[in-house]
């Protein structure tokens, strides 16, 4: 049977995009397309009937900054974001973006695409989640900014006719940032921890682990229990934090191998050791 090929819409500006999206809310939004084509191993990939190609829209390819935040268009390539500069991007985000893949892939992949993949959480997701990033959703006649966490939790992800247009990253002064990517595949893990220290006190702390699939491991209880603690952390503080994380992992990720669970605890333990006064 001969397959019918997709119908491609190529809007030239945001207005056209929103108008097309309104009449074709089911269309696939295609920017870099790296995940879509990587996931589709057929010689001629089978794509949805309607596709909206986003890369000709200038409004989605802008990067701007104010004193308080950096705003990145959803179709800005990862490589272009990296060119914003190591000094300007938060270190953990820089490491996460750089670790996505080779430069050729980073020239195609976009930040919007990285956040819109639903089957699994991509590399930038955990870092952006911890940084209280906001996402702009637009449709004809309206726009709204929502926190990344809500964007991911939304079911359905985006309301009819809406499009992710910008990502706003606040400049928070984290003076301790770690991003780690530990092997790909079944037991792969990504990890991010951010902290602020004031003199000898931990004034802000947040962390998350990402594993293959949609898993995200966070423990607000552990985070808040560590806030205001004197640095370096006492043995008792560390043991309590580790116990809290162990319980979170056991409770919500029973299917994880013991190797992976031990690994999570050992990475977190080394972070606690690294938290020393400035």
């Amino acid at each position, binding site marked *: 049977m001969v397959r019918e090929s997709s119908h491609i819409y190529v809007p030239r500006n945001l207005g056209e995009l929103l108008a097309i999206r309104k009449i074709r809310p089911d269309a696939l939004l*295609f920017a870099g397309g790296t995940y879509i084509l990587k996931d589709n191993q057929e010689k*001629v990939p089978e794509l949805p009937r309607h596709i909206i190609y986003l890369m000709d829209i200038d409004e989605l390819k802008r990067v701007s900054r104010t004193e308080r935040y950096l705003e990145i268009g959803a179709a800005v390539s990862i490589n272009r974001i990296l060119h914003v500069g190591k000094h300007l991007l938060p270190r953990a985000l820089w490491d996460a973006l750089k670790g996505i893949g080779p*430069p050729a892939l980073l020239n*195609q992949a976009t930040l919007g695409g990285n956040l819109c993949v639903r089957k699994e959480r991509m590399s930038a997701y955990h870092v952006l989640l911890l940084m209280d990033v906001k996402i702009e959703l637009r449709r004809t006649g309206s726009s709204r900014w929502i926190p990344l966490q809500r964007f991911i939790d939304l079911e359905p992800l985006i309301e009819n006719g809406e499009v992710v247009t910008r990502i706003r990253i606040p400049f928070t002064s984290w003076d301790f940032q770690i991003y780690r990517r530990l092997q790909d595949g079944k037991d792969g893990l990504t990890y991010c921890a951010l902290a602020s220290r004031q003199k000898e006190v931990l004034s802000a702390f947040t962390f998350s682990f990402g594993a293959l699939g949609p898993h995200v491991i966070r423990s607000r209880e552990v985070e808040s229990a560590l806030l205001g603690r004197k640095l370096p952390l006492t043995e008792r503080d560390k043991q309590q934090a580790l116990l809290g994380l162990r319980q979170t992992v056991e409770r919500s990720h029973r299917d994880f191998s013991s190797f992976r669970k031990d690994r999570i605890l050992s990475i977190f333990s080394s972070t606690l050791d690294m938290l020393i006064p400035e």
Partner: protein
Amino acid sequence: MRISFHLNGRHVSINTIPERRLADILREDYGLVGTHPGCYKGTCGFCTVLMDGNPIYSCLLPAFAVREKTITTIEGFLPTREAQEILKGFQEAGCLLPEYVLASVLFPVNSLLETTDIPDEEDIEEIIRYCHWGPSRSMAFREGIIIAAKFRNRRKRRGKRK
């Protein structure tokens, strides 16, 4: 769908299925067999081409995304002096690149030399990390990049003097 684009300095137009991968179009419709779609996953890098001057994986690019873009394949890049400098660098280092790895080595190295005059260990390590050709782990490969950078700088200096 009719798609027009610039290919190795020529304006071309093709009637094709919009979802077809650029790598297949280049090989099957234009006979540019220096582009090897090895994995269709953007892992091996053997299908790298330049799109508007930036390296991309042509196996991850559908035909509809190429409209009015400028594509340079390894066949179009090889005659340039930039490519010849890199090849000469590897040759002098004693690292001979087989035909099938040219796209995956020359394009990333060229990108690096366009942004950096003297590549450091970290830059070279990044090229090697993503290069799926065994001998790229050798000292000769590293040396090749450094010598190529010297040739490039020498030419840039000469250009400035003129």
